[in-house]
């Protein structure tokens, strides 16, 4: 096989790691709380600016800045739930959509007000790894590894703890959850905080690869959404796998056709597949 193709494919898989984090975060919130967070990738943008302020502004060590940013976005996730979603939990889905859509515009405008639309970056660029004639992005490799570790931790949490069990149960039958002694508000709060934490972590990994600007969420949002639908809304494993399939489509079409059209190709593939499998590629 030609090394450039191999290189593109490897980078595609590595790119999938961060998408997997975000897809799982959004899918978890959708599956458990049954709301759609239109503004989900805007939390990533907030996290990236947080790192920018802490690292480039205050001069904190990068790792510390990242940890604080993750904590901050985790809290923000819980706040989004308690302040915006919880009061309208029983409203029609369209109202919830409008509310989180409003949050999207609010966060984008607020970021523009504070930071203008100038591109910022923290000035840390990791070198590429050279491997038998191929160039592999270290930032992406790091992102991939960290993302897999995070997904494993989440899996262990959902599988082996009481709250993890409660969260999985709610996604299956929310109406009787109280009979199990579970306070639904807490389960929703924890789920939203986890969603926030994953977005915060994604911010740490992306800040090493991309410039920050108020609308950066728009560059990831649609892909993350597509991954969720592709793998079956609310299906965590499906979303996880889709993230890699979609990034691979992006990488390969970028190689064969053009990088400018690679996202368009992924969406075209998505539309075609949805035609045959409207409930996701893993549906029976």
């Amino acid at each position, binding site marked *: 096989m030609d090394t450039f193709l191999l290189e593109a494919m490897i980078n595609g898989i590595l790119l999938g790691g961060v998408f997997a984090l975000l897809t799982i975060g959004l899918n978890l919130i959708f599956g458990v709380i049954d709301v759609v967070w239109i503004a989900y990738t805007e939390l990533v943008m907030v996290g990236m600016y947080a790192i920018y302020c802490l690292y480039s502004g205050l001069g904190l060590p990068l790792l510390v800045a990242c940890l604080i940013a993750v904590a901050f976005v985790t809290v923000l996730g819980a706040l989004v739930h308690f302040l915006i979603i919880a009061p309208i939990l029983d409203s029609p889905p369209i109202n919830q959509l409008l509310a989180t859509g409003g949050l999207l515009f609010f966060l984008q405008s607020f970021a523009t007000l504070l930071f203008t639309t100038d591109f910022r970056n923290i000035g840390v660029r990791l070198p590429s790894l050279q491997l038998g004639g191929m160039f592999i992005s270290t930032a992406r490799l790091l992102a991939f590894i960290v993302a897999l570790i995070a997904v494993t931790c989440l899996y262990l949490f959902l599988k082996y703890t*009481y709250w993890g*069990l*409660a969260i999985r149960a709610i996604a*299956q039958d929310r109406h009787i959850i*109280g009979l199990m*002694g579970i306070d*639904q508000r807490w389960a929703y709060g924890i789920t939203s905080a986890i969603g926030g934490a994953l977005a915060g972590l994604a911010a740490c990994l992306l800040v090493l690869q991309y410039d920050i600007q108020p609308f950066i969420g728009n560059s990831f949002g649609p892909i993350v959404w597509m991954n969720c639908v592709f793998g079956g809304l609310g299906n965590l494993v499906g979303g996880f796998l889709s993230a890699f399939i979609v990034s691979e489509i992006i990488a390969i079409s970028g190689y064969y056709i053009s990088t400018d059209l690679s996202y368009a190709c992924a969406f075209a593939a998505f539309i075609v597949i949805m035609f045959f499998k409207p409930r996701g590629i893993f549906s029976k």
Partner: protein
Amino acid sequence: MLELKKVSAGYGAFKALFDIDMSVQAGEAVGVIGPNGAGKTTLLRVISGLIRPWSGTITLNGQEIGGKPAYEIVAAGIAHVPENRRLFPRLTVEENLKIGAFVHSARGQLRERLAWVYDLFPRLKERRNQLAETLSGGEQQMCAIARALMSRPTILLMDEPSAGLAPVIVDQVFELVQRIREEGFTVLIVEQNIQSLLDVVERAYLLEVGTIKLAGTAAEMREHPFVRTAYLGM
């Protein structure tokens, strides 16, 4: 031990229960019968906190529990086996049981409790790693009851445990209810299968359009002319 006084409840503007007075003593098994739509499920829901009473008082051992959220009422000692079993289909049998022990008082004793319900229902032990959706109807009912027992309730509410099961299995479910009684649990059980119900309870209430039309011992109910003609088909 459980006492309802003038309890009313409903959904939206629709009133489903009107001034219900009812009591269950410790160690007793009490039945509730009535036609479809009478409000039997609503009655259990209001006791377990799934819906709030509009008025009236509900007390457990003298403590007011009316209007508290369901998760607090379980902790107070009332477990509810809901209509249609409602297991979590894509959790394993053991995970379903584990979630029944979510309340704080039960968590520390997970192992003992699991051993105890597996002893009570050996079939569940054989199937503990299977997804709940793969169980047969009768096994699902066992699992739903076992899940409720995991919190070691002082009173167990059961909503039509025999519904939708084949006749042989229905007999097994009533044997199960009998076993649970022998374990010393207090039960309040809603059933359409009135003959079998009256064999396992001491007293029963007849609910019609949201009001208690009749109440009495199992023997009294069985002999009552109205119950005989309208419900026992004699």
